[in-house]
């Protein structure tokens, strides 16, 4: 399209900002999850059919398609294995507050079958971060923990309770322990 075409001069741009508000009740299993993380404990549901442990609990096993409930609740560790990570160099898009490179890591907690994603890794130089690293949660002080970001979609929001994960100093986990969780 050329700049001098008459049609171009008649183009009109209108801004249409959309804001939609949703008020969602957490499912009973997520309510319980939220109660426990405020106390510094992580829980999941163990599928009665395949024994996989989902953290946070979904209320069902997507592989077996069976429902799970409070009877299937198990506590998992706040330590685990780093199964994957990205180091993000932020660009100044609208809403981006970070200016320095940061980490988005997935952590397979001991006792869980599903990694928790989007976790920060601190206390380790970015070029030393690697899969198989043993890490532990750095909990925010109880009074500073916030759970508003935890929704029925089942991911995100944990960073307002667990500030980051740091290296435990233990030897790396064997690849067999996390190879199903690499992506």
């Amino acid at each position: 399209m050329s700049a001098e075409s008459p049609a171009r001069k008649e183009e009109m741009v209108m801004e249409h900002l959309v804001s939609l508000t949703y008020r969602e009740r957490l499912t009973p299993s997520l309510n319980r999850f939220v109660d426990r993380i405020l106390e510094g404990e992580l829980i999941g549901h163990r599928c009665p059919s395949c024994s996989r442990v989902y953290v946070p609990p979904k209320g069902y096993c997507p592989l077996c398609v069976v429902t799970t409930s409070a009877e299937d609740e198990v506590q998992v560790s706040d330590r685990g294995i780093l199964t994957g990570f990205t180091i993000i160099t932020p660009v100044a898009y609208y809403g981006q507050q970070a200016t320095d490179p940061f980490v988005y890591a997935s952590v397979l907690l001991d006792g869980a079958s599903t990694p928790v994603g989007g976790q920060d890794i601190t206390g380790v130089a970015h070029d030393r971060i690697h899969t198989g690293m043993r890490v532990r949660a750095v909990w925010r002080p109880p009074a500073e923990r916030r759970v508003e970001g935890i929704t029925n979609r089942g991911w995100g929001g944990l960073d307002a309770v667990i500030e980051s994960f740091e290296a435990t100093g233990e030897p790396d986990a064997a690849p067999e322990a996390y190879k199903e969780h690499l992506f």
Partner: protein
Amino acid sequence: MAARDIAIIGYAQTPSQRDAIQSEVQLLVGTITDAVTMAGINRREIGFTCAGSCDYLTGGPFAFVSNLEAAGSWPPISESHVEADGAFAMYEAWMRLQEGDIDIALAFGSGKSSPSNPAEVWAHQLDPYYLAPLGADPVSLAAIQARALLDSGRATERDFAEVVARSRARATANPNAQLSGAVDVDALLAAPYHTAPLRRHDLPPISDGAAAVIMARGDKARELCSRPAWIRGMDHRIDPHQPGVRDITTARSATMAAQKAGYDGGPLDVAEISATFSPQEIILREALGLPDGTEINPSGGPLAGNPVMAVGLIRVIEAAARIIGGGADRALAHATAGPLLQQNLVCLMEGE
């Protein structure tokens, strides 16, 4: 033509309810499992799955992906999604079955309207230049449609109230209904306007829910179900998006969809139609050409429960259930989408 050889053999729906405690996926887990159980099949026998939902309603991008977990999608399955009511997902699955290489298909629809403000959400399905910036919400649009219908002289406010009274009365026999009971037409007419000329009872409830159907081809359907609901035809047609350029006291695309689905105006035992606001039952009865003896919305219809994105598929289920149960030989189901009956789908079913 293969189209004559496909039938509904299993179905399930959740009760229609406000503020469901389960997530949308959880609503689907039990519903799909129940439909699979009713069909008497193993989940792995399903050759194609199609889902209908709306991310704007759920309030998250790609929300439909987690819904798929309820279908048992590992090992990988062949599936698709429509950003529409489950009835439109069923249309795609019905088309897929006509390819002839698979015998069984699953379609489902789900939505939770409670977490959002539907008046805000649905304004955004309108054209982005003229109507969406006005925030034209479904109730206001339906009131304009109701006014146009009154002005045409083809209905009165009493007719609207009679639609509501019939819906509530019939819904007393529907365990999944959200609103039911005996109501007096004069008492309804004594209520104040909500958005004139509509009163609150002329509006559907805000509902959460899910629905699923299993379809099978030919001998497979006969083997699995003693009296399948044979789909004799299904079609959907679309009117112009801008309500201002069409006659909103009728639904030409509904008339066309009924004709293309093979409905010839002949006898029908049951019609389950997506009349979301009471005046729309009068509009659709005319547009679809429903004969006098036809029982319209024996379930109570959307006025008794309106889980958007499942409500159209529930019309198909309610009609099919009456054929499978032996209470009806020929039934029509109707689903709609878009503002003021803009898009219309008709499914014509018969017993054998």
